[in-house]
């Protein structure tokens, strides 16, 4: 079966093609310029980050080899053949994991309370004064942008080594992150209940309490649970700088080449993160129905 397609006369096609080319030439030019800039950036960044493809190819075997080694016991056997030997320090590690979880819990709670106290002043529709709003916003931005481990480094010197520095570091970072999310939530509320409460002569406090809180609480709780998940991960590395939790053990194991300990601790961290993710996911589902999960 032959297919015959009717076509336009050649001159009409030429005209159409010219129009098409004219229409997309600008787009093509923009794409080309973007590509050139992108490649240039890539090359500059490659030099900046001392990318060494040769070292990488030579050493990539080490990466696989490293995982091979951390899955071997000192005796040369695979770790899973002797779980008792592999997890020889499980009591100590479990305790440190519990400390990590508590650290993130207390840090998240303080962070959530702080963010709760501040966010209404940062929300455009609720803030009593623009100057106050500006100050609160900038300080939240500062808390959010400085990574929590930098706070931890400084706090370890101010408060001494130990989990307290880690808690405060996580708390400060959470205030910044949650404060922003909370205030965005508060900016999206329906203003009618607020006007209703205001019109009865209520103070700012009671207006927030009775008109705003009922609208924003589910969102706040959801964001706080998400933050808790993130903070568990962050708390696992607080020990790198001496701010408590399991990180200390991990960094010692990596630096001193206690290979099987590395895999044991990593596995315990991963499993804990899984469990926390599942629990908070379940909790979110129970509290707000499945559509909130995103």
């Amino acid at each position, binding site marked *: 079966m032959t297919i015959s397609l009717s076509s336009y006369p050649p001159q009409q096609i030429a005209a159409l093609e010219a129009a098409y080319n004219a229409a997309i030439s600008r787009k093509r030019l923009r794409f080309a310029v973007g590509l050139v800039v992108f490649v240039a950036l890539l090359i500059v960044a490659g030099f900046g980050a001392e*990318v060494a493809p040769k070292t*990488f190819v030579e050493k990539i075997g080490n990466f696989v080899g490293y995982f091979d080694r951390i899955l071997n016991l000192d005796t040369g056997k695979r770790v899973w053949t002797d779980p008792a030997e592999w997890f020889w320090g499980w009591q100590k590690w479990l305790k440190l994991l519990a400390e990590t979880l508590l650290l993130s819990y207390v840090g998240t709670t303080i962070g959530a309370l702080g963010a709760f106290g501040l966010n209404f002043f940062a929300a455009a529709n609720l803030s009593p004064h623009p100057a106050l709003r500006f100050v609160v916003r900038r300080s939240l931005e500062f808390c959010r942008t400085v*990574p929590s481990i*930098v706070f931890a480094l400084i706090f370890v010197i101010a408060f001494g080594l130990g989990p307290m520095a880690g808690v405060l570091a996580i708390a400060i970072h959470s205030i910044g992150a949650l404060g922003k999310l909370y205030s965005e939530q508060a900016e999206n509320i329906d203003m009618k209940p607020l006007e209703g409460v205001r019109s009865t002569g209520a103070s700012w406090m009671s207006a927030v309490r009775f008109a705003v809180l009922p609208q924003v609480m589910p969102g706040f709780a959801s964001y706080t649970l998400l933050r808790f998940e993130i903070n568990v991960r962050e708390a696992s*590395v607080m020990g790198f700088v001496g701010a408590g939790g399991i990180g200390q053990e991990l960094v010692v194991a990596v630096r001193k080449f206690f290979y099987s300990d590395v895999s044991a601790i990593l596995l315990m961290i991963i499993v804990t993160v899984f469990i926390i993710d599942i629990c908070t996911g379940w909790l979110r589902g129970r509290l707000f129905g499945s559509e909130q999960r995103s």
Partner: protein
Amino acid sequence: MTPAARDPKELALQYPDLFRGSHTARMKALAVGLAAIALFFFGCWYLEFSIDRLVTGFKQLGWFITLMIPPDPGTSFPTYLVAMGETLSIAFLGTLLAAVLALPVSLLAARNIIPSVFLRFPVRRFLDSIRGVDTLIWALVWINVVGLGPFAGVLAIATSDFGAFGKLFSEAIEGADRKQVEGIRAAGGSKLQEIRFGLMPQVLPVLAGQVLYFIESNTRSATIIGIVGAGGIGLQLAEQIRVLEWQKVSTLILMILAAVAVIDLISSRLRFAIIGRAGEARH
């Protein structure tokens, strides 16, 4: 007759179930709240909080802050600029590498590409476990492989983002419209052509937006991986904090804030240009 006009007690007698329900729910909420508060105080006790340490700590902190003002890099400003460039390079390259590697894997984790649970499940768990490990830990591992320096940082960022991108990309792919894909199939396209011409044009703008967003957040991560020796400004920062050079510390923190703000601005502009207002609202 409206319910509001009636006596609450009478209503409670008439609909006992409704009232008892809210009562038990209240007790439950109260119990959960109390447990949460108890756990909080237990945590404070267990983590060795004390008013004493807090007070002395905050005093010290106040002292440090007075020492930080005014920020002064001394003679090391050029070094810091180079370190900042290194940090930005690490963030940029790490994110791109992760995105390039994650794209094919995310196809394997997407329900509409791989209907088989048995194939999808291990891929998802694999991505999850990569995501469960913090960037700093990956940096430690990569330092063992390629040595100290920014290259280890690039690989660390790439690894931890690989997990995150795999998940986000596969969700974006699952959210794509079936119609285009079916159209390609109806025209006789192969499975690969379905993905290339039916799926990719839909999801690429979304993915590009996510990559830009990550470059922004990775600028923050890249500032800290230097703490374990994986290059960038974090190394300088950790060192200056340890030797208590507070004026340099404040300079470095200001530089980080400025860099993050600039990247933020650029990437949100680009994101806006690529996906427009509708995409912007997704974040």
